[in-house]
């Protein structure tokens, strides 16, 4: 059961297509397992539909409609005979990474190898086809480990894929999303039963606090 959801602001920005690529992927993973958040996205998309109808129409160039007609005459597909839906066939599957089955929403991404970032902590960098500079990280943290205490300059989106962790705001299990605003400092601790694998994206940059945090910051490119 999912107890930690995305905020309305985030789902609104996702529905509007305004969330940066990295966080949008984390939200896509969360949505795939969360009917409640999917319903909220559908409502916010309806807000988009309503805004589209309310807007003052813009003038089009004089030949726009003629060009549109030529385009539909040229198109191979007729609307009555749908060809095979796109995307599914074309989507390459990412190479597997040890320890976890990658969510469907990340199948077209390039997943790097696990690298050591601290005792009991490994990370893998995920590169997105749509934005080479987007920052998306898989974190794999051993049981009982503390992540360095940190704050953020932006919002941190963390989706639990396996295992669980807790911080001052609650316990997060697979399917849960932790959304930490820029004004929050928190220190996640992985629960004792097993390692925890999370998908994390940051809008903005992380501000590690405490001695250990400042020490490892140069190495943790979240």
């Amino acid at each position, binding site marked *: 059961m999912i107890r930690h959801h995305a905020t309305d602001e985030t789902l609104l920005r996702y529905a509007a297509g305004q969330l940066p690529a990295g966080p949008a992927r984390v939200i896509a993973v969360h949505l795939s397992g969360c009917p409640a958040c999917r319903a909220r996205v559908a409502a*916010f998309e309806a807000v988009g539909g309503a805004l589209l109808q309310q807007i003052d129409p813009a003038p089009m160039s004089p030949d726009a409609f003629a060009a549109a007609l030529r385009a539909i005459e040229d198109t191979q597909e007729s609307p009555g005979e749908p060809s095979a839906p796109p995307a599914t066939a074309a989507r390459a599957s990412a190479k597997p990474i040890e320890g976890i089955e990658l969510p469907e929403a990340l199948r077209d991404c390039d997943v790097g190898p696990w690298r050591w970032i601290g005792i009991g902590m490994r990370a893998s960098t995920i590169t997105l086809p749509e934005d080479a500079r987007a920052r998306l990280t898989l974190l794999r943290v051993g049981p009982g480990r503390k992540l360095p205490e940190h704050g953020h300059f932006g919002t941190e989106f963390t989706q639990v894929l396996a295992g669980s962790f807790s911080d001052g705001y609650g316990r997060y299990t697979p399917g849960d999303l932790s959304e930490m605003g820029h004004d929050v400092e928190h220190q996640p601790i992985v629960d004792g039963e097993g390692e925890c694998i999370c998908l994390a994206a940051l809008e903005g940059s992380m501000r590690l606090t405490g001695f250990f945090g400042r020490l490892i910051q140069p190495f943790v490119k979240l």
Partner: protein
Amino acid sequence: MIRPVVGGVEGIMNAFLEPARSKIANRSPSRRGALVTQFMQDDGAPDGGEMAELIRRVAEAQDRQAYARLYSYFAPRVTAFLRKSGLPANTAEEIAQDVMLAVWRKASYFDPAQAGVSTWIFTIARNQRIDHARRLKVAAAAQALPPDDEEVAPSGEAVLLVAEREASVRAALGALSDEQAAIVRLSFFSEKAHSEIARELNLPLGTVKSRVRLALGRLRALLEGQSS
């Protein structure tokens, strides 16, 4: 005659609809007049049921008159929407043309049990805008957002629920204060996070956040009221 042929989109549409006129020429003159003006009018906004019917006619019969009606209503609005999102006028029109072509090609995928027509077209425009931004960022062709792949058989009940949702979302938008509505609109037209919006409006972040929360909370309450 019914209406003089004028320049611009309307003029071309008049020319385009010529076959339609001759087809209905045998009917009574008053009926003919009513039909043609119906196609010509842009300001008479079609309601949700009418729009879904137009999409169905495009999907099942490649009905170009139905398409013309959809085009005359949506193309200028999609263009306006994209321009408001920060795209230059010519790019906005190019993408709007792609969006309208997708409406033609994907008409049979439209599912009235998932969303209303304007919402469906909004999501197409949103995805095309994202794709456009990606093409600027990377040379390689990018994937669209993961498609909603739940196959839900459209039932009359589901279609009704969608229609209700669209109506109540509209009502809720209308009930927002000007400021709340402005904040919601900013979320659609700007990629800025609310913290940046707050800075720009010179409002404390907490104020913006609580106002957004209020506005969105109202929408959410409406939705949850329906699903129960």
